[in-house]
């Protein structure tokens, strides 16, 4: 969406990584809800027809079946549109997956406002708040192609439930050759800075990077943290941001109430309070494309820059 850098649909690398994992490990299976096309799983189904279990349009059954497959020794990746996975099957996620601690990988496809004009029924802005409320459920939001590949591989190899978001619309690479691009349980500081910290997740990380570049031209040193793991929160990195910079901006494609902004604010206010601005999507969206809606809700590099100026002005 920046229009300059080459951009990638993370679902493509997601499916490619799953196929590679399935070739290595016969325990890897996919469970989905008539979502083979939208999850980009046609090739997986062609290669492993027995290991793609499509329950049809039945999300409660989908998550329960996945819990059963995990009980039977398999590593199921549940691939379904994020709003239907997390809302329709929330109690199955809570009881059958998280409380029972089954080895189920919950992959929320096309999260946030990715479905644009299809409207709030198809948007998934509440998922992070809902998943955050569950006890000890890792929440991973890969920001680009490299992070998606590494995060999926990590999820397959760790034992226990995970929730991850896999974006729909194309985003540029933000890992910028960092290796590894994804470190479990760690926030990734991708640009260092000393005046203000921008903590962004998923699709908004590239916008935070653009904002930092603009701020630099104004003489403002902005730190950018790619919070690819929201739970558990990397409190060491957040505390450093609170101590070493004057203000924190959070940017997410979800509700800030209980979302990423909420998570960081809960920690900052109890440990090292500094001025904060939480940027996200806190209401049902009007009609419009994903690009339009990101602008409508002020989730742009320009808006992040404006928030930084405002916070730093008050801080003086």
């Amino acid at each position, binding site marked *: 969406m920046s229009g300059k850098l080459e951009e990638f649909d993370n679902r493509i690398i997601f499916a490619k990584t799953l196929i590679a994992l399935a070739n290595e490990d016969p325990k890897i*299976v996919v469970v989905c809800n008539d979502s083979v096309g939208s999850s980009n799983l046609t090739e997986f189904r062609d290669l492993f027809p*027995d*290991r793609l*279990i499509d*329950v*049809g349009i*039945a999300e*409660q*059954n*989908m*998550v*329960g*079946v*996945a*819990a*059963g*497959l*995990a*009980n*039977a*020794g*398999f590593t*199921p990746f549940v691939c379904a549109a994020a709003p239907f996975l997390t809302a329709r099957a929330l*109690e*199955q996620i809570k*009881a*059958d997956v998280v*409380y*029972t*601690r*089954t080895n189920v990988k919950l992959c929320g496809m096309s999260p946030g406002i990715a479905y644009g004009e299809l409207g709030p029924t198809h948007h998934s802005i509440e998922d992070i708040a809902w998943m955050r409320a569950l006890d000890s459920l890792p929440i991973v939001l890969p920001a680009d192609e490299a992070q998606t590949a590494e995060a999926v591989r990590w999820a397959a190899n760790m034992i226990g439930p995970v929730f991850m978001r896999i974006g729909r619309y194309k985003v540029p690479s933000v890992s910028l050759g960092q290796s590894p691009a994804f470190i479990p349980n760690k926030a990734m500081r991708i640009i260092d800075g000393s005046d203000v910290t921008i903590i962004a997740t998923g699709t908004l990380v590239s916008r935070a990077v653009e904002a930092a570049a603009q701020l630099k031209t104004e003489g403002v040193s902005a730190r950018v943290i790619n919070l690819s793991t929201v739970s558990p929160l990397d409190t060491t990195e957040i505390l450093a941001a609170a101590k070493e910079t004057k203000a924190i901006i959070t940017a997410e494609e979800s509700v800030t109430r209980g979302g990423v902004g909420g998570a960081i604010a809960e920690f900052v206010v109890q440990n090292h309070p500094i001025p904060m601005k939480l940027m996200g999507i806190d209401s049902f969206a009007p009609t419009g494309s994903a690009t339009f809606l990101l602008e409508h809700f002020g989730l742009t590099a320009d808006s992040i820059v404006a928030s930084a100026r405002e916070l730093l002005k008050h801080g003086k």
Partner: protein
Amino acid sequence: MVINTREISDLAREIRIQILHTIKGAGMGHIGGDFSVTDILATLFGSVLNVDPKNPNKSDRDRIILSKGHAAVALYSSLALRGFFPVEDLKTFAKPLSNLNGHPNRNKVPGVESNTGPLGHGFPIAVGTAIGAQLAKNGSRSFVIMGDGELQEGSNWEAAMFAGHRKLTNLIAVIDRNGFQQGSPTAKTNELDPLDKKFESFGWEVCVVDGHDYAALHKAFTDPQTKPRAVIAQTTKGKGVDFMEGKAEWHHKVPSAEQYEAALEQVGKQ
């Protein structure tokens, strides 16, 4: 196959005695549903299931998923008597920090397969374990035990439809058809019948049996299958104690000292 129903009835009697002790000791429990499901559990644990108390997680074990998790005490008593954990531990049921919660917890109790309690959860999980066994080709069978009122949850019918579609011949759904839900008869709340025809139309074979007849239950659990099988076990809520049988208030009533003694005496003779 000829089975020794005496062994099963001995186990059932011991399960009922432990249920009485445990619920009396804790001052809470779901005694009516525990007693209606007891003979089903005794038949499964006594003569059907391939499970090993010394190796409760062996990969080819049969899965038994108690979807009606509120009958936890019946399950705990069955597991303890089969040697999954000491019978003595039943005394801790519902006490602070006990492993034996009001609903079962897989991570704390050997032999429990899933943390059930909210209704309509066990059936999809059993469909998953049955598919997993087919993928693993290890001969494991899956049994899910549900209350009848629980079948009002839509998730069960998602699972039933999919199991029928997949022709899961290693899956048995047992319906503890005691005719009551928490507050009143199922027929007055949201009628389930014709339950057999509902399952048949979803691609299942159906056995309607007396849920307290060990030989009939054993046959329903072991006859060869060509489809997933629903065993509609016609049971009596509170079975085994005359003043509890068929009474809605015994869904989760706790017996008084006199009722406890009278119940123990009746059950002990069975």
